[in-house]
């Protein structure tokens, strides 16, 4: 494949949205209230919409008859490049929204830079997505504050969520070989440059939410290289069920 780096780079971006979209979609009919249920599934829908734009582009680059659906549904676990953060399960509502918040702050900063990509398709997609993601970030930040600065129980739950998710935040700023090559070509975003601002912004909001900023310096990574936590396999068996059971079925 010509442009193999670009193809893999797009997948790296899109897989974050795909897997997080699937996680948020799991709340369909299971949200803690009707409004939050609808909000989470709308975020999921936005993310899936973004994924379609990325995968349609990736399919064009691959140029071997693969479709957006093949790319989404027919890869094996090791071939998904999402960060570990987004595959973590919905243990409770604080955890779900804490995860969303930790990703949204990154996502917004990332898209803001991707708009400047020398690849016009990627910059157009980023320009489109950033408008939606700014609504996501408002929503998740709002909930981190509400639960953090809420009752004793809600505060504890949000604190626990942030504490256990913290270990996955550093990976957002880890560069793969593909990332480096794309930055070199003016196409990719240098994520290492986003790190400082990210932790500043996140810490500010956690303070506002009267939560403690975790001190642990031990960070987990691997997702970007396809080495995932045990949770991704279960998620994929859900996500891929129809295509695996009824190959080539269409809606």
């Amino acid at each position: 494949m010509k442009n193999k780096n670009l193809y893999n780079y797009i997948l790296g971006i899109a897989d974050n949205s795909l897997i997080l979209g699937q996680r948020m979609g799991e709340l369909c009919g299971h949200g803690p209230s009707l409004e939050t249920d609808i909000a989470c599934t709308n975020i999921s829908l936005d993310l899936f919409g973004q994924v379609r734009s990325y995968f349609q582009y990736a399919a064009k680059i691959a140029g071997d008859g693969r479709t957006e659906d093949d790319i989404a549904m027919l890869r094996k676990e090791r071939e998904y490049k999402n960060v570990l953060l987004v595959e973590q399960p919905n243990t409770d509502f604080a955890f779900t929204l804490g995860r969303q918040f930790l990703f949204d702050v990154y996502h917004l900063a990332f898209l803001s830079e991707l708009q400047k990509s020398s690849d016009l398709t990627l910059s157009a997609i980023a320009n489109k997505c950033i408008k939606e993601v700014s609504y996501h970030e408002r929503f998740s930040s709002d909930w981190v504050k509400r639960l953090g600065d809420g009752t004793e129980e809600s505060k504890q739950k949000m604190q626990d969520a942030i504490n256990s998710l913290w270990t996955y935040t550093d990976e957002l700023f880890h560069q793969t070989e593909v990332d480096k090559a794309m930055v070199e070509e003016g196409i990719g975003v240098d994520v290492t440059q986003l790190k400082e601002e990210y932790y500043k912004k996140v810490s500010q909001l956690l303070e506002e939410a009267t939560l403690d900023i975790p001190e642990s310096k031990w960070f987990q990574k691997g997702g970007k290289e396809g080495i995932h936590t045990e949770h991704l396999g279960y998620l994929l068996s859900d996500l891929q069920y129809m295509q695996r059971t009824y190959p080539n079925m269409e809606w």
Partner: protein
Amino acid sequence: MTTTEQHIDQILMPILEQVSDPEIPVLSIMDMGVVRSAIIENGIVKVEITPTYSGCPAMDVIGDDIKKALQDAGYKSEIDLILHPAWTTDWITPRGRQALEDYGIAAPLNAEADKEVLLNGKRIVKCTNCGSKNTRLVSQFGSTACKAQFQCADCQEPFDYFKCLK
């Protein structure tokens, strides 16, 4: 390259105006601003549409509906989905805004006011039922991703507000 102009062949206008948004049937796709160009080239109508939201499930339907309307009028057509420039609520026409309000969906405010409403709980969105501005945000996401849910504190009517996208 970043043109926000529309190029619509006037002959096609009446046909396209008949196609409505499948989720908001009172609103024509022209008033929604999703059709960015429609021109006739070698006997084929080429239409470019742009999605309101990336995940908007209405886009595929809109594409099919345009094709069908043009076919009924005797035209072959090709529909292209373009992402750039990205759609903004500023492209909803005044007639479109009125149609939204009549349908029970509050039309988008400007970006500043929108922020005040969605982040700071300011009460300035007008109730589509009684006109009162004594309304409160129930949820930042309504029946679809493009809307937020409100309730009027005077007449108690729940209604959707079309969020500003810029």
